[in-house]
């Protein structure tokens, strides 16, 4: 199954208080040297059919009318290569 990723970010001129809060927290946790943080949204769309121009055009339309509010947000659409192996989960203290 083909996956299309839509990333939605607040436009640069729109204040992102959530990103700012994350940025302020980073040095407290010892993560220094990060000049700016912007927080956005990522949508992963699994297509039933092939990723052709028509399918991508429809997804752009969905992004423009629904997934993003273009008054305040920008979006990008990209095709992600099909992942064959399941990503291994982070080793933790699984019980």
């Amino acid at each position, binding site marked *: 199954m083909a996956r299309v990723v839509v990333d939605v970010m607040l436009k640069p001129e*729109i204040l992102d*208080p*959530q990103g700012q*809060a994350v940025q302020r927290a980073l040095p407290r946790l010892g993560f220094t040297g990060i000049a700016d943080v912007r927080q956005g949204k990522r949508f992963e769309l699994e297509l039933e059919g092939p990723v052709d121009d028509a399918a991508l055009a429809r997804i752009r339309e969905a992004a423009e009318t*629904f997934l993003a*509010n273009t*008054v*305040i947000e920008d979006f990008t659409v990209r095709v992600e290569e099909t992942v064959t192996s399941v990503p291994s989960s982070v080793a933790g203290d699984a019980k």
Partner: protein
Amino acid sequence: MTTRVGVVTFPGSLDDRDAQRAVRLAGAEPVALWHRDKDLHQVDAVVLPGGFSYGDYLRCGAISRFSPVMDTIIEQAKLGMPVLGICNGFQVLCESHLLPGALTRNDSLHFVCRDQKLRIENAGTAWTRDYSAGQEIVVPLKNGEGRFVADEHVLEALEAEGRVVARYVDVNPNGSYRDIAGITNAAGNVVGLMPHPEHAVEPLTGPTTDGLGFFTSVLKQLVNA
């Protein structure tokens, strides 16, 4: 015939009953409208109430905007039917592009709940004609994403055309550009307001009864139409 004012209930609406009560106290007949029903049941005006429709998923108002009832409301609003969007309702109106701009996360990141002083800037809309321009009122305000933003030329146009309906006084609770609490469309029939006039219609439960004017205004508007 009694004026019929519809109040839409979306899944997650919170203030629909209070809005209905305010409509009744103003002397009109409240009509409950359901988000999945395209039929407006012969109402003369519509209130989109506050709350967290569809859990505020995606963006506040983004999913409600595509509900069946909104198709009809958008169509009728463009033909001149009075529509008042309060809080989440304001967000729905912006997402519907009936009003310009957008409502984003409060600059403080905190949910704010307070009795808020407002100045009515435009007393000529369908929902504010019972106020006078410059009048100050106090009504409850409660939002997490109430920060009105728009680009500079939209803000200039709103100011130049007198389309700022209400502004925050003393305290700007959410970082809204130019202290904007409410705006209207060019025709003056569609108004979006972040604070809650429907919670200030009775002395027992509200800080004032200053909010009643929004609901009596639309009655007068419809009777004189």
